[in-house]
């Protein structure tokens, strides 16, 4: 279903009041840009979207960010969460549950788990961190390094220790990335960030790394 939205409505929501706007409570334009680029956690994204729905000046700022984002290439959507995919997910979950039950009945006693906890099960070993896990990095030069398949470009995602997105960058040709200091404003000194790299191979296939950990000084 593609909604038939009149262009005049799109123009009208960004029309500024003739007698001026009160912008004292408006968010920083950088946050609006980050919201449009999908760099914010859902909660903050929602707050900014709700504000733009009620504030013509921020609606205009949002629409301009959409325009700019289109011109430089919109970030790739990881999953479009279409319903048939959800059903595949349910089917897969049921299958896993059935297998788990079968194993449970065949092996009544299981050895305790002794391996160290991981943020995510290793998915692919094609991309490796070149930093030691938990390495302390200076805030003004928070450079993440990795190695991956030759000829690949890389997408990187950085989050805080609660897995709230801090920064995302796509289409990196090199295998280092310096996280902008302003993206780390919410991370306290000694705070932990987690990061993950996805290699995009020339044939379009993707290889996701483990989730790595670093400390921001």
């Amino acid at each position, binding site marked *: 279903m593609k*909604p*038939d*939205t*009149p262009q*005049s*409505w*799109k*123009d*009208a*929501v*960004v*029309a*500024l*009041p*003739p*007698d*001026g*706007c*009160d*912008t004292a409570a*408006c968010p920083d*334009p950088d946050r*609006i*840009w980050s*919201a449009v*680029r*999908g760099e*914010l956690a859902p909660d903050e*994204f929602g707050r900014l*979207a*709700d504000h*733009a*729905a*009620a504030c*013509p*000046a921020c*609606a*205009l*700022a*949002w629409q*301009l*960010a*959409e*325009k*700019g*984002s*289109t*011109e*430089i290439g919109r970030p790739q*959507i990881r999953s*479009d*969460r*279409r*319903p048939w995919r959800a059903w595949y997910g349910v089917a897969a979950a049921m299958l896993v549950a059935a297998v788990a039950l079968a194993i449970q009945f065949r092996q009544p006693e299981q050895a305790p788990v002794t391996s160290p906890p991981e943020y995510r099960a290793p998915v692919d070993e094609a991309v490796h961190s070149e930093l030691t896990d938990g390495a302390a990095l200076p805030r*003004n030069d928070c450079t993440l390094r990795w190695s991956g398949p030759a000829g690949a470009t890389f997408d990187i995602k950085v989050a805080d220790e609660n897995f709230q997105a801090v920064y995302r*960058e796509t289409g990196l040709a090199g295998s280092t990335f*310096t996280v*902008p*200091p*302003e993206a780390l404003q919410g991370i306290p000194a000694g705070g932990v960030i987690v990061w993950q790299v996805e290699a995009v191979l020339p044939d379009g296939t993707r290889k996701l790394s483990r989730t790595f950990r670093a400390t921001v000084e």
Partner: protein
Amino acid sequence: MPDYEEIRAVLVRAIASLCPGWMTDRRDDLVQSAMMKLLRQEEKSELNPAPKASYLWKVAHSVTVDEIRSVRRKGEVSLDPAEDETAVRLEDARAGQDRAMWELGNAIRECFETLESRRRRVVALNLLGHSLPETAEHSGWRYDQVRNLLYRGMKQLRFCLAGKGFAP
């Protein structure tokens, strides 16, 4: 050392694209403001030596929005009378069209108030140019859920606007 000519070229292109038509006379000033912002970052060693185009566009967007807010701030009185006269002439030229658009925008915002919060958000994002898959991804909601919210929200918005005398 950043290549300032290259940076300036990107900023000129970005500002030209982002700057609303009624602010075209301020484009050079905006490019300058963006350059100054980057220079201040470099002084504090916060600027990547080779900033990506996406970052430069973000800076261009930021200075443009700051300028829009400054120009259209409520109750702002210019120190330069000539600037005021220009503004009045511009206002006269487009007053009718702008007022009609503003009234429609206001009606849409009033109708938003009658929508359930998630429907309101999805409809507003649609009007602002955010695609359905992006809205789903960035809100952490399912795609089919968002599609449904938009369908129902738009239906309700049409009904509400029709009640106020605005037909699409």
